[in-house]
């Protein structure tokens, strides 16, 4: 029995290795804010959100598989949360009753296993009931298959079968073992033989046949003998105890997998509810293959910004199909960083099967997402700032493959403009040659100008909008790079100087 809500054909791997630039992504895209919103303070939900969010899928079909499951979840929030609750209950029960297999003796292993199995049977019955009552409301391939499996595998007969075993394994009538003679005439291959379930007195039955039967009874004070007898019994039930314990572990794993695979969707539900409260829209993105170049959206906003300031934020539109270089220049505080972050967030959210923070969104899949942001100078580091930036760039180059995407935010500005531009130009040129999509927020006019003058069909230039009076709209518009970033505006805003004084 497999859950298969995250993949159509395999289990979700919660300990999958995250990309090597995990830390940079977390920091540059403010991912903690996103995952916190999904987790609502629950550590496990956070971990699952992070694990899923950072383990991007590159197959559009897989993405659509999860999108469909998620659409079902959004339609049936109560039922989905109820299923999740069953897995939580399993953990609570185990903790509350100290359940687990802590002994090294088969008899102890067996009795612990029976207790656990009985608890699991209760939960599985609940799951069956949910499947019976609600399966019809679900349309996705994932849930349809899941409910069908529950109904088929966990039918009434099966529950009867399990309960019969659990009863029989208490051996109220004694233990019947079969053995052979090994080396030194020592008993070996102790095997538990089957009790006859139609006959309550099966032992009597077995031993009532004509062949001779010899018996002895232990002296009541023969403690040593009682221990020896216990050991003998343990040998006989060793294998069945192992089977019961492993079964308990398997069911435990099944329920855990269920919890892991639903956790991501619960996180999505939590997020969608918060965005709905802010009046923000969400949309299911259209992923296209990594070989294509598409990037078109409307109303794309920075979900982390919205969550942080707890209000609706400005969205942007872009039609950049066929482009693989987007250079963003323009006004300080004009929403460039926010825009860049929304690009990265949307990419990650799309590629884990989530909705995105936009009215509509379509983009090609990236084999890898990398961020290269200007960092605060670290006083503890000896290396100079440009050195440090180039070091990080070198790490990216170590890990990047074609059809990836890099988001640069004011990179390589730690030197004079000419040198910074030249470094940037060289790096970006090679990346483009390697079929890597680049978004570059920059104040390096020279760098932007060089690419603008090339009049490449595959490049697009955006500018942070500034109205004539210096006010920002936080909208990006397409336009030629400008030589000023309107830093004076900011200066004036902060120092409050009048026009005449400047």
């Amino acid at each position, binding site marked *: *029995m497999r859950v298969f809500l995250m993949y159509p054909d395999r*289990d979700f791997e919660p300990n999958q290795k995250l990309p090597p630039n995990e830390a940079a992504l977390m920091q540059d895209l403010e991912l903690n804010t996103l995952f916190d919103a999904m987790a609502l303070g629950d550590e496990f939900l956070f971990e699952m959100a992070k694990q899923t969010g950072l383990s991007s899928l590159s197959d559009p079909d897989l993405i659509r598989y999860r999108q469909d499951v998620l659409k079902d979840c959004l339609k049936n929030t109560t039922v989905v949360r109820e299923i999740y609750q069953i897995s939580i209950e399993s953990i609570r029960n185990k903790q509350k009753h100290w359940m687990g297999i802590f002994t*090294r*003796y*088969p008899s102890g*292993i067996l009795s612990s*296993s029976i207790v656990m199995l009985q608890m699991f049977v209760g939960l599985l019955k609940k799951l069956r009931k949910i499947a019976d009552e609600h399966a019809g409301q679900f349309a996705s391939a994932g849930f349809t298959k899941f409910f069908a499996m529950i109904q088929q595998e966990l039918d009434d007969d099966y529950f009867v079968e*399990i309960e019969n*075993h659990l009863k*029989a*394994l208490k051996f109220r*009538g*004694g*233990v*019947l*073992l*079969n*053995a*052979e*003679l090994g*080396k*030194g*005439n*020592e*008993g070996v291959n102790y*095997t*538990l*033989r*089957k009790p006859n379930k139609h006959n309550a007195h099966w*032992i009597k039955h*077995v*031993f009532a*046949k004509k062949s*001779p*039967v*010899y*018996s*002895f*009874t*232990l002296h009541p004070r023969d403690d040593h003998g*009682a221990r*020896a*007898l216990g050991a*003998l019994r*343990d040998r*006989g039930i060793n*294998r*069945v*105890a*192992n*089977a*019961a*314990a*492993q*079964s308990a*572990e*398997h*069911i435990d*794993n*099944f329920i855990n997998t269920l919890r892991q695979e639903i956790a991501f969707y619960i996180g999505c539900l939590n997020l969608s509810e918060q965005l709905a409260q802010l009046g923000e829209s969400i949309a299911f993105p259209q992923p296209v293959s990594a070989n294509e170049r598409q990037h078109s959206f409307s109303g794309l906003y920075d979900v982390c910004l919205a969550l942080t300031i707890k209000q609706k934020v400005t969205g942007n539109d872009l039609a950049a199909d066929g482009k693989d270089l987007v250079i963003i220049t323009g006004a300080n505080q004009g929403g460039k960083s926010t825009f860049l972050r929304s690009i990265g967030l949307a990419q990650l959210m799309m590629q884990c099967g989530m909705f995105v923070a936009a009215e509509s969104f379509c983009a090609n899949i990236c084999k890898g997402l990398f961020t290269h942001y200007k960092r605060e100078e670290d006083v503890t580091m000896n290396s100079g700032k440009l050195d440090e930036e180039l070091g990080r760039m070198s790490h990216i180059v170590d890990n990047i493959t074609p059809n990836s995407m890099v988001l640069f935010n004011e990179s390589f500005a730690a030197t004079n403009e000419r040198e910074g531009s030249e470094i940037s130009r060289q790096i970006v040129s090679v990346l483009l040659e390697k079929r890597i999509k680049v978004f570059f927020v920059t104040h390096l006019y020279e760098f932007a100008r060089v690419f603008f003058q090339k009049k490449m069909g595959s490049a697009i230039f955006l500018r942070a909008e500034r109205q004539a009076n210096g006010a920002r709209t936080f909208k990006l518009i397409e336009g030629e790079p400008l030589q000023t970033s309107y830093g004076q505006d900011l200066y004036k805003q902060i120092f409050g100087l009048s026009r005449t004084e400047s």
Partner: protein
Amino acid sequence: MAFYSILFDKDGVQKETTVQPAFFTDLNLDQVIDALTAHKQEYNLKPFFYTPLRDVQTLRYRHEVMQDMEDETLMAHIKAFAEKMPIVRRYLDLVEKLDFNYHKKGWFLEAALAYCEAVTGLARDLNLTALKSRGFLALRDYITDYVHSQEFQTLLTEAKKVKDGLSGVKYCVMVRHNTVKVKKYEGETDYSVEVEKTFEKFKQGAVKDYGVDFSKGSGMNHIEAKILDFVVRLYPERFAALDRFCVSYNQFVDETIRVFDREIQFYVAYLDLVADIKHKGLSFCYPQVSVTSRQVYGYDGFDLALANTLLYTEKPVICNDFFLKDPERVIVVSGPNQGGKTTFARMFGQLHYLGSLGCPVPGRAARLFLFDQVFTHFEREEDIRSLRGKLQDDLVRIHDILACATPDSILILNEIFASTTLKDAVSLSKKIMAKLVKLDLLCIWVTFIDELACFSEKTVSMVSTIVPENPAVRTLKIVRKPTDGLAYALSIAEKHRLTSKQIKERIES
């Protein structure tokens, strides 16, 4: 040739010595033998290694056996046999210790089965292998005859028959509260399988194995013994067959094979060490041996104990040469300390001793003298119980040695008379040297007294050497040349900038 022993070509000689020879620790041979026998305690091999031989024929006999065994296939066959025989012994020991009749008899049967397997295996393997040595050829004839003998064949057939009968025994045990019932097995089905099947569908991924390992700790408590008694009553004929077997074959191990099993380990132990040491790029050779000629040599010889301790290190083992031509008898080794003099002396002694065991010796080529006794005198810690001063102690010991030594003995002296004035040491040493030369025995004498090196035409000078440019580096090479302590002294002086020229420069004029 009838097979007598894999170690001896003839009867009537002393095969073993229980006491470790006195010189073993000085030559570090105790370390070598400890290493050889470390994993073979049960064979009690040391008495063989404590027994040097002077019979050239027997030594050749051993060389042949060793040369056969250098073939990896034969060695593998011998080791396969050697793995099985201890099992026989272990089972027989077990029989002595056990309490319950059919438990004992069951293990006795196992011992017999293991023995049959070991012997038939060895006979088959020896017949598939090319053998040259007299020892192995005779053994092959012996064991082939034995395996085909009526005695062995019936042992084998009977043992198998009895075992088959017992292996076919199947019984049921019912445990309820304090009562145990036993009956024959009558086709009841396996319940574990059924439980496993029920929960099969949840299987995904690996889970822990909760099975408890009951396979270890063979033994039988009184409950199991009681159950076995019932099983005996269920299958009386099969156990009666076991009874008959135990009576008929109560001494099934052939004495010659038992002895062979132990003696062959002498070779296995030594050749295993040789193989390890060869990995360090060192050579072994079968020496020429003689009871008459004292014209000995050893080329690229090394200290086996040292080589063994350096086995798993990067450090190289330095090899040295020696030779003595008539009338030379005494090698006087001098030169800087830490230069490998003691190691050289040990090497000389080890080569002769190992040669007298019939073993390949460390080195590329060697001719060795078969001594009657080896004496060593290495500097020792002062022993408070001796109630003597060190010089006195030295003299007493050398006196005792000279009282026992014969012209056929080998003597190794290491820095004696170090605890007296140089003048005393020189005169005492010369007196001793005179006696040695007169005795005409082979001797290595490590000393700081240069004069001994040119004592007579029977003495030869060998010197430990240094790298001239850097006197602190020892080459550990001992070469045959006249003593020239001066060169060494000068280089040390140079290092401390105390040559005359240097002193001149350092002292302001």
